[in-house]
């Protein structure tokens, strides 16, 4: 009996493998983004001496980290990357505005269940939202994978997070993920994979919230079993063939008797909104324990919580209301598809009418390079995945991580707020 990671890596290695073994595997997809592509291209050609990538169809390049370019330097490097992509015959280039690599590769149907996907980004665990074994690597590993189509792994043990019940109003996938970080700690799943069970009712992008935060407990991969209520309901904006491809492959399923190194059971019916306070992701408390924390800027975005669902959840709370005086709220959609969907159904208008502003789909200020970096002593409520000191700009800024629901409620009051408090105390004008 095998965990999902063992099943996927067995298939990729061409033999049955179990946790602890070291294997060389074929990779199905290599992802690189603008931030590391220049160095990957240099290592590929100059150090490894490879003239071409092993398979241009299985390399995806995304310009999302500084998109659009913020300086002559970044613009020049992006131009170099575009030229290189062309010279290599790579079709899968997703340029400025298409969105963050992780949701984009899922929307495009390039990331699919059962695949081994390596990306030049630590949050490549994201691909676990469709039960792919996604993992982040640095420049040299990605260059080597792009040159050879292969990489090596130690097959990970698996930590099981088993959710029971259903979220209460105002509580969502982010709270489950932050609660897991609180219990497992930042190093709790180092060298291991995390499997998230009991979350079949979540959409694919809500599953991505769990999968991206898996790296914040140190995990190599973070997989949600490929169980889907109905594919159309899960990726409504995707093309038909993409929706079909998101279905479960025959070889991949949760097997009774698979060995888990640790099991964390979470009762969703009792889960409160969780807040990760500065400056580590696992510094988590119930919102109700924190008292009154004043917030200067609310930032809704990232591969963790910048999805359509997140904008819609915020819009439900902001509808007919206005941001607190002096509050800034930045919304940076995770992808162009998410933005289009939010535009089509009025979600975007609701956000704008409340006083929020909008950025180009992509990573935005998540890594503190442009589009909303923080000043010293500013306090940000962020729907992203890291609150490390200096992550979003000044090392004197403070970052609190929370769900999109808490973000919206906080934008209305100016201090950390439970979504239900807003429902009770701030009348909507519509």
């Amino acid at each position, binding site marked *: 009996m095998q965990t999902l990671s063992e099943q996927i890596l067995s298939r990729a290695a061409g033999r049955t493998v179990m946790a602890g073994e*070291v*294997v*060389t595997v074929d990779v199905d997809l290599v992802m690189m983004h*603008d*931030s*590391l592509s*220049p*160095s990957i291209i240099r*290592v590929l050609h100059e*150090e*490894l*001496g490879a003239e071409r990538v092993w398979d241009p169809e299985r390399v995806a390049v995304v310009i999302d*980290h*500084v998109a659009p370019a913020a*300086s002559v*330097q*970044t613009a020049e*490097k992006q131009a170099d990357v575009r030229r290189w992509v062309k010279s290599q015959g790579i079709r899968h280039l997703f340029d400025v505005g298409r969105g963050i690599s992780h949701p984009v590769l899922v929307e495009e149907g390039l990331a699919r269940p059962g695949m081994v996907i390596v*990306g*030049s*980004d*630590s949050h*490549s665990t994201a691909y676990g939202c469709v039960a792919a074994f996604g993992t*982040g*690597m*640095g*420049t*040299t*590993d990605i260059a*080597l994978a792009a040159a050879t189509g*292969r*990489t*090596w792994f*130690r097959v990970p043990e698996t930590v099981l997070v088993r959710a029971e019940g259903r979220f209460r109003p105002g509580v969502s996938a982010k709270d489950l993920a932050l609660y897991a970080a609180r219990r497992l700690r*930042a*190093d709790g799943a*180092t*060298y291991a994979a995390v499997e998230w069970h009991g979350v079949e009712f979540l959409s694919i992008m809500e599953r991505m919230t769990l999968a991206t935060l898996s790296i914040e407990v*140190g995990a*190599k991969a973070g997989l949600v079993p490929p169980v889907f209520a109905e594919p159309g309901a899960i990726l409504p904006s995707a093309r038909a063939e993409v929706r079909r491809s998101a279905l479960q492959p025959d070889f991949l399923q949760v097997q009774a008797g698979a060995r888990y190194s640790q099991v964390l059971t979470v009762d969703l019916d009792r889960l409160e909104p969780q807040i990760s306070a500065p400056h*580590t992701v696992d510094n988590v408390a119930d919102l109700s324990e924190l008292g009154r924390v004043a917030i200067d800027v609310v930032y809704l975005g990232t591969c963790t919580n910048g999805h359509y669902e997140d904008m819609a959840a915020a819009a439900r709370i902001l509808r007919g209301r206005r941001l607190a005086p002096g509050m800034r709220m930045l919304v940076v959609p995770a992808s162009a598809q998410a933005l289009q969907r939010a535009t089509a159904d009025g979600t975007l208008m609701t956000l704008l009418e409340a006083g929020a502003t909008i950025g180009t789909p992509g990573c935005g200020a998540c*890594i*503190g*390079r442009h589009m909303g*970096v923080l000043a010293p002593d500013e306090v940000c409520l962020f729907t992203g995945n*890291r609150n*490390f*000191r*200096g*992550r979003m*700009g000044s*090392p004197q800024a403070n970052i609190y991580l929370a769900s999109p629901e808490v973000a919206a409620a906080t934008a209305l009051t100016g201090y950390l707020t439970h979504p239900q408090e807003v429902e009770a105390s701030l009348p909507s004008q519509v």
Partner: protein
Amino acid sequence: MARVWIFGQDINTDQIVPGRYAPYMLKNEADLRNYPFVEHRPDFAPGVQPGDLIVAGNNFGCGSSREYAPLALRLVGVGAIVAPLFARIFFRNALNLGIPCFTADLTSTLRDGQEVELRLEEGVIVTDEGQHIQLPPPPAFLRDVWAAGGIVPFYRQYGRFPGEAR
């Protein structure tokens, strides 16, 4: 002699090199050597000497996949890093760049600023007080990667991945 630089636990890659100092953001990529711990510990980059030792707490290098974090440490010549647990991407990046990493907790055995001798071949630290500290050897299948000086020279020499049958 090498100087010991003590760091705490959960040192993340944003503390090692903030994203704003990525080579991608710089006019001159060689400037990266000025930025290891630029905000977290500003005395590090100007003071570090080739061969110096980083001795850190649990979960060193957690966070991003940015290889320029260990690269910045290699550029200033860090001789080895000792920590009870390394975050996995950092560990792979350091391995790939040929930076020796030893899994041990020496944060209360050694002092910041202490002078020691690192005997890499034997995996031994000799302190200025004459104390010998044996470091645990890295896993056998990775030792050859360090011996080769990183994954690129290893792969070019052997034509295989670590752990693969010869």
